């Protein structure tokens, strides 16, 4: 099969354009194109840069380095080439040096990025550029045939302070032309408004620092260092939030100070280049990553992401997951139990032991016992199985203590948790189940248990006045060890006065809540199953055919892909189907699907749940989109409330979503999704409505992609 020439050109140019864009931490090819144009303001400079970039890429390919989206050697070599081209007047020798420098930079990029990562999990960024540029600065001092470039005078724009901002941006590409800076800033805006904001803020605090010092260092010359430091720390390598923004500005200040400190290097013929930015960023990143405690800012050192994307992911994570560091455990029982004391409970869950749950079984009137509750056997939970909340090893266990008669407490020292099992997980968390029934243990110390395995029965031993189950995660194995934050994963919670059972991937139920594990409804899970290779064909009301397919990527990620190539990652677990990481252009069917099914629990007991899908999935009018750009420049997510019911026949399901975003007083975006699911075909009908705009899709065919020896299948519905 021959490739169409335009497509081939795009495929070949893609890595370069994205590599050019990476100079400013961007990835949009359009941004790369703008930066390419900027470098050609002085064509001989642009050409040297391009030569170095091409040479670096060729060297990397020759050496067999993996193809990545944004090859890091490209922007490093580009910068080295630009440096050469701006210092020396163009000649065959300079071109040759650029080619050599490109290849050397490629090597240096791969060597240094690996070395720095192993050293302290730090990103190398443009380190190779600085090192190789210095190398060539040293070399070229002794080369007789090089002719210095004629000095170029660049114009200033008005107002001057604004011109300095753009000039300093241009300096990063050795093109200190304010127009170059304007184009680069435009590239930044295309990619990320948040990074653009950080660039401006970083420049301002850096320039103010220099001014406050009365330093001779010109912000218009070195300012890109502050900007890049603010962007790297504040938006790219950390979840964008107030804390990371503040640390980004701090990094900009440090970069400004380093600009002053490293002035002396210039006298040695080694201009600081981007070194202040690198050192300042590494200092702050390493300092933050080595913190003993957690909390904001949350670093993304191994997965730097544009802040707008991080924000979408962060909002999804907030809606779906507990805060980082909270330990997930499974519900340790079968059936419905009530939380009799939650986290920060009024009785014993206080101080260092605040992260714990007590559970009892109650009847429909809230009583935990039959008859008069005079005997242990009257208590509904007494003797009920207790399950392992995690997989792990039985670290310690005890079941020789007698159960207390109802109302009595065994408060003797060392018997607080009564009969208990302490499990140690593979990641060294200790999970404790307390007050178990005398003689009910089914495991012994040293046993390895699976999550969900029956360990013992609920009892009334230790500091317990009625049969109940105590659950906590503790920091170490001492009986009095402080507890760690925990949450119940995949749980259905019923709360008095609230209609419907709420599903949550990470539940922190409170006192009085009725809790049960979210059990997978096999029929529903099978209806919604999306194996690799599955194709779905939907017809819209105008008769147009839209398709979705599932692919398994090389790295093992499942992606739901629309006809135009737009896609989203999907994670199908035993208890839930979840989508995230939407990429690519708009696609009505894909977007409708993601909005309707973004988070879909498989539990039959899940009647309602919440999620936070990005607003961009909704069919919005041009006016609404314009409003969003102004009022939510960094993107926004819906507050989405989902419900699922059986349809009237009891054989299918109807899943609805109400998605709202309040932009201001009286300004509310309100979108609803409705999906009908049948056990045989999965989603049959899909409707998204927003005001009078409505998208409606009907499933018309399903299929399975072929494999070697397995013909593809396609069935009309």
């Amino acid at each position, binding site marked *: 099969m021959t490739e169409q020439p335009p497509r081939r050109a795009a495929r070949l140019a893609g890595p370069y354009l994205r590599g050019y864009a990476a100079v400013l931490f961007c990835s949009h090819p359009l941004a790369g194109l703008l930066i390419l144009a900027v470098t050609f303001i002085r064509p001989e400079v642009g050409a040297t840069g391009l030569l170095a970039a091409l040479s670096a890429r060729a060297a990397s390919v020759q050496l067999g380095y993996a193809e990545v989206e944004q090859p890091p050697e490209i922007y490093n070599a580009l910068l080295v080439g630009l440096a050469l081209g701006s210092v020396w007047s163009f000649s065959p020798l300079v071109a040759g040096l650029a080619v050599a420098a490109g290849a050397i930079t490629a090597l240096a990029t791969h060597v240094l990025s690996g070395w720095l990562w192993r050293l302290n999990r730090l990103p190398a960024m443009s380190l190779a550029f600085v090192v190789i540029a210095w190398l060539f600065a040293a070399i070229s001092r002794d080369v007789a045939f090089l002719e210095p470039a004629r000095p170029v005078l660049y114009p200033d724009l008005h107002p001057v302070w604004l011109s300095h901002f753009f000039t300093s941006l241009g300096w990063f590409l050795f093109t200190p032309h304010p127009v170059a800076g304007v184009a680069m800033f435009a590239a930044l805006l295309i990619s990320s408004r948040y990074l653009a904001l950080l660039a401006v803020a970083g420049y301002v605090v850096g320039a103010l620092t220099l001014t406050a010092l009365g330093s001779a260092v010109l912000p218009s010359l070195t300012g890109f260092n502050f900007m890049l430091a603010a962007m790297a720390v504040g938006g790219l390598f950390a979840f964008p939030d107030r804390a990371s923004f503040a640390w980004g500005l701090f990094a900009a200040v440090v970069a400004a100070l380093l600009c002053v400190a490293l002035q002396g290097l210039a006298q040695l013929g080694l201009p600081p280049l981007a070194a202040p930015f690198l050192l300042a960023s590494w200092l702050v990143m390493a300092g933050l990553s080595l913190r003993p405690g957690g909390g904001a800012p949350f670093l993304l050192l191994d997965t730097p992401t544009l802040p707008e994307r991080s924000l979408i992911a962060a909002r999804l994570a907030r809606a779906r997951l507990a805060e980082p560091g909270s330990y997930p455990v499974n519900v340790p029982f079968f059936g419905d139990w009530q939380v009799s004391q939650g986290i920060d409970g009024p009785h014993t869950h206080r101080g260092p032991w605040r992260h714990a749950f007590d559970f009892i079984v109650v009847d429909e009137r809230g009583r935990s016992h039959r008859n008069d509750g005079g005997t242990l056997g009257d208590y509904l939970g007494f003797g009920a199985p207790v399950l392992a909340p995690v997989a792990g090893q039985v670290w310690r266990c005890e079941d020789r203590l007698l159960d207390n008669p109802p109302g009595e407490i065994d408060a003797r020292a060392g018997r607080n948790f009564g009969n208990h099992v302490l499990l140690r997980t593979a990641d060294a968390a200790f999970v404790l189940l307390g007050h178990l029934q005398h003689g009910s243990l089914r495991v012994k110390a040293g046993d390895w248990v699976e999550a969900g395995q029956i360990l013992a029965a609920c009892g009334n031993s230790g500091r317990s006045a009625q049969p109940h189950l105590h659950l906590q995660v503790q920091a170490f194995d001492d009986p009095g060890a402080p507890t760690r934050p925990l949450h119940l994963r995949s749980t259905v919670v019923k709360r008095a006065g609230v209609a419907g059972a709420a599903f949550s991937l990470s539940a922190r139920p409170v006192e009085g809540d009725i809790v049960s594990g979210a059990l997978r409804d096999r029929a529903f899970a099978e209806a919604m199953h999306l194996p690799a290779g599955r194709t779905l064909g939907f017809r819209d009301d105008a008769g147009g055919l839209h398709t979705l397919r599932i692919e398994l990527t090389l790295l093992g990620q499942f992606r739901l892909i629309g006809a135009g190539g737009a896609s989203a990652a999907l994670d199908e677990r035993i208890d839930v189907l979840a989508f995230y990481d939407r990429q690519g252009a708009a696609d009505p069917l894909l977007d409708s699907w993601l909005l309707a099914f973004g988070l879909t629990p498989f539990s039959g007991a899940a009647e309602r749940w919440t999620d936070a899908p990005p607003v961009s999935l909704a069919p919005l009018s041009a006016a609404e989109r314009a409003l969003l750009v102004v009022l939510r420049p960094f993107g926004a997510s819906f507050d989405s409330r989902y419900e699922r019911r059986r349809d009237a026949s*009891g*054989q299918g399901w109807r899943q609805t979503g109400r998605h709202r975003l309040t932009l201001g007083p009286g300004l509310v975006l309100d979108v609803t999704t409705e999906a009908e699911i049948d056990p045989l075909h999965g989603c049959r009908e899909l409707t998204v409505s927003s005001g009078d705009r409505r998208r409606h899709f009907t499933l018309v065919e399903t299929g399975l992609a072929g494999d070697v020896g397995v013909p593809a299948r396609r069935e009309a519905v």
Partner: protein
Amino acid sequence: MTVAARKPWSKPVLTPHRTGTNKFGMARHRFYRSEVDGVAIEELVERYGSPLFVLSEHRLRENVRRLLRAFRTRYPRVRYGWSYKTNYLNAVCATMHQEGAWAEVVSDFEYDKARALGVPGSRIIFNGPYKPRAALEKAASEGALIHLDNLDELFLLEDVARQMGKTVPCAIRLNFDTGYSEAWSRFGFNVESGAAHDAARRIAAAGVLKLTGLHSHIGTFVLDPRAYAAQIKIMAQFMDFAERETGAHIDYIDIGGGFASRNALQGVYLPPDQAVPSIDQYAEVICQAMMEAVRGRKDWPWLILETGRAVVDDAESLVSSVVGSKRLPDGRKSLILDAGVNVLFTAYWYNHECQPTRAIDGIPEETVLYGPLCMNIDVMRASVWLPPLGLGDRLVFNPVGAYNNTQWQEFIQYRPAVVMVHENGEVAEVRRRDTLETMLAPERLPAALGTPFPNGLPE
């Protein structure tokens, strides 16, 4: 020599020592019962007549909740099918459905009854050895769980599925010997002979049926819970076979019913307090067996319970009145009541507990209780110790909730009304007393027979 005065001879008598406790020390907690959930029985009888069935909504709901709680805290996937044949009064079925019970029916009539109550076909378990073609067609199209009893039925369902052009899920009923109770080999496919295995293979081969469940019912009034553990073990082995050999996906294991209620079976020596296991005891053994059966499986099958008797029996009482008494030739006392085996069908095999509705002074004596039928077999209790009751006194029989409102007969007498005492204390008549009109409603008298005595009244 003096002659010792001779004491007068008296006939030796053995008098049982009755202290109100039985030999296990269990005390009868009361000697009479004057109310149901706070509503005076006397008032009910005044309003609705005697005899009268009285249902307790509270007890009914408590019983089913207790059953489900006991099982669901021990095994996570438990469904409950309300066994219509146990008591298919609409009020009872509707209460059960409100508690989340599916409908378990055994005939086209029961199926239609469940549908009329608003139960969708997909929430009906269709059992029974005879399902007419029309009923199968309806059940298959509405998505009911169809439990096949024999090969002819299997072939019939295949035919129905072919005609409908769709794959119909079904289950097969198994019978086997658990070693605990007498095997009910007349229902379903036998496991030991391989008939059940053949049926599973046949279903797979037919292509239009899909085996999704297994059903068996090991008996009735099963007093040893270990019988169920044996049953589940055999069914789980069969499940493994069916999944391995026929590619089936078993979604549920239906263990039928058969839990005993707190009723005294005739011929059983121990009183029910001793003989009948608690729901928790059944749950413990059954769920333990299920947990062993599902070890290592990704999707655990549902456990379906169809136990009706243990849930409804003690939620209903029968109030009757003494309408006559006589001393039998052997010296025993007998009472004639206005309710007989025509309405209390289970009196054939239970010794129902019966209590007066007020405290009655006097020495209890052995009494025979007869019903109002002119049939020799109409005996409500062959022997019961009761204080002296007079005309118009009431006797309350309990537990009577299972099998009476479905098996009672339209024989000689008008069948009594059934009332339900709601949880809020209100009383609703849920079934009217028979009247001449209701008894005659189905009859058609040919016109030629319309006039009695066309030739004048006979002498």
